């Protein structure tokens, strides 16, 4: 990536406190357990649903909003999120349109907001322009599943910090202890624990094997908070995951809820209520 491998100024001069105290840090400072993050795909089911969905997630009582930036080739996602990506793209969503939709959202939304997206659309937008825009509209963090730690450190760390964006890495049951420690060292918000082998998609239940893995990571006493994602779908799986972490992330199950919804606001709030009750 030498084309973008530019060095950025130290972050201290422009945004003295932004990387240390954005909404994600504040949240985890005040709430240590049963943190609920909800993922949805921007521009789905309809192009202009992005903001109404965010408002409903907040009204329903979730803690973090994770906005998926649609991509034609989401290799870490299962059929439910793939379909929502395809439909959102057919609806005409793009990163540009998403940022237009997000302009001014901070007047209504106080929750931390994280963008989850694959690298390519962001690279085409321009990584620095993207970070700048994120900061401008009020995005707090990023989850870029196809940006590995080394590439992040080499190319983007300083840039993300300059714009006050918290980067979140994934770990999975395969991730070695050594690597988890490295990831913990390079994270400064939360770690996304993928619950099992696999791409996203609502599976049912949490197995003993998964609990062993949750406990193993819990015992490592990492400095960062941990949210468990992939396969969390209801109050039972949410509560179970929360026993071994700071909370959980719901994606595919939420997408199914909005997909079948006749009244987005009501259905989203009702769904979140059943999860956190």
């Amino acid at each position, binding site marked *: *990536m*030498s*084309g973008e491998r530019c060095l950025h100024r130290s972050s201290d001069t422009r945004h003295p406190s932004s990387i240390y105290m954005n909404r994600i840090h504040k949240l985890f400072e005040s709430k240590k357990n049963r943190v609920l993050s909800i993922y949805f795909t921007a521009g789905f089911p309809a192009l202009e649903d992005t903001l109404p969905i965010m408002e409903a997630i907040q009204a329903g009582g979730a803690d973090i909003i994770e906005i998926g930036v649609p*991509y*034609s*080739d989401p*290799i*870490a*996602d*299962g*059929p439910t999120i*793939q379909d929502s990506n*395809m439909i959102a*793209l057919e609806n005409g969503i*793009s*990163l*540009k349109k998403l940022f237009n939709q997000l302009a001014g959202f901070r007047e209504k939304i106080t929750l931390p907001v994280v963008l989850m997206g*694959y*690298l*390519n*659309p*962001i*690279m*085409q*937008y321009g990584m620095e322009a993207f970070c700048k825009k994120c900061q401008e509209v009020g995005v707090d963090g990023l989850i870029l*599943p*196809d*940006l*590995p*730690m*080394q*590439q992040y450190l*080499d190319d983007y760390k300083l840039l993300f910090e300059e714009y006050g964006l918290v980067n979140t*890495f*994934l*770990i*999975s049951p*395969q*991730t*070695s202890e050594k*690597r988890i420690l490295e*990831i913990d060292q390079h994270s400064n918000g939360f770690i996304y624990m*993928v619950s099992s*082998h*696999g*791409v996203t998609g609502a599976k049912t239940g949490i197995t003993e094997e998964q609990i062993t893995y949750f406990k193993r990571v819990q015992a490592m006493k990492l400095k960062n908070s941990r949210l468990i994602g992939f396969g969390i779908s209801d109050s039972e799986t949410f509560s179970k995951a929360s026993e071994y972490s700071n909370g959980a992330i719901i994606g595919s199950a939420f997408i199914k809820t909005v997909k079948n919804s006749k009244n987005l606001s009501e259905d989203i709030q009702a769904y979140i209520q059943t999860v956190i009750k």
Partner: protein
Amino acid sequence: MIKVDEKGFYGKFGGAYIPEMLHPNIEELKDNYESIMASKEFQDEFRGLLKDYVGRPTPLYFASRLSEKYGAKIYLKREDLCHTGAHKVNNTIGQIILAKKLGKKRIIAETGAGQHGVATATVCALMGMDCTVYMGEVDIARQHPNVERMKILGAKVVPATSGSKTLKDATNEAMRAWINDPVDTHYIIGSVVGPHPYPEMVARFQSVISEEMKWQLKEKEGRENPDIVIACVGGGSNAAGAFYHYYNTPEVRLVAAEAAGLGISSGKSAATTVLGTPGVLHGSKTILMQTEDGQVVEPHSISAGLDYPGIGPVHAHLFDIGRGEFVAVEDEDAMKSGIELSRLEGIIPAIETAHAIYALNLIEYSKDDVIVINLSGRGDKDLDTYIKWGNY
């Protein structure tokens, strides 16, 4: 120097942009492939199978009638004579031995034309390993005989039903399958694409092509270097194999033929270097066809094996620094060249390969030039397409 660096980059292109879930698999490969490949045990088995099972060395055939027609000394490197009918098997033999050494139990693969799928199913049968091949629904329809060949060989063929339902989507599905089942499974990628170390590893397995070309040319022409090497580029594995030992010999011109489909500006094309821009696809930074919003564009080519929106990072680099000459060949012209080679030399080429033949019409050379065209595969799998096209 054209050489991959320790982070997997060829100049600006390459790297390993993969989800964390695949990190252990990719690390395992990266940490082991070079030492395994360098071991005598591996080399003995690999070389032995290439010789006795694949039928290597493949001939370097002087095509006299083709030479006469075009006014140059044209040789054909006969990868079409490899067992299973294309160069793809050089790579699958290498990777299956590697997979065994890594203790893997299951193989997955993606395929476009079905040639890589067949080559993978073949080596899995040979080694008694479980095999699942992902193939786009569109390709399953247009390459039906290869689907049946894979099944006869005992492989499971899983249709990829997302997106354009071709090679790109089959690759997505294979990557997802690997994420879902990472422990005992090895993913045999079929071209010089994917995250590092795949592009370099596949190129090394295919480099036997130019390794043989060198001594064969020495025998026939008294010199190891041709003036020009021509190969078609889908992901670019046959081209990488044919170019490999000439990368750093600047006097050898490297010509890569891409598929222009119905024409560069028709919206139905797979001419990546003409229409593409830098981006990340299937784990590496390369040149790919995409919208200005960074969505990957659905390509088109009459040949399923070239119907891919990207190229391997090494080819993006060759293009970027001007080391490679890239030409774009339309469906119609490729088909004509396929018929022409059949009539002039009695060789019905794969339609992918026919793109490389047509490149003779697009580049400059003189009558004393020695040109090697990498005849990547035979046309048996494409009979339906030839028949449908009909102009013969």
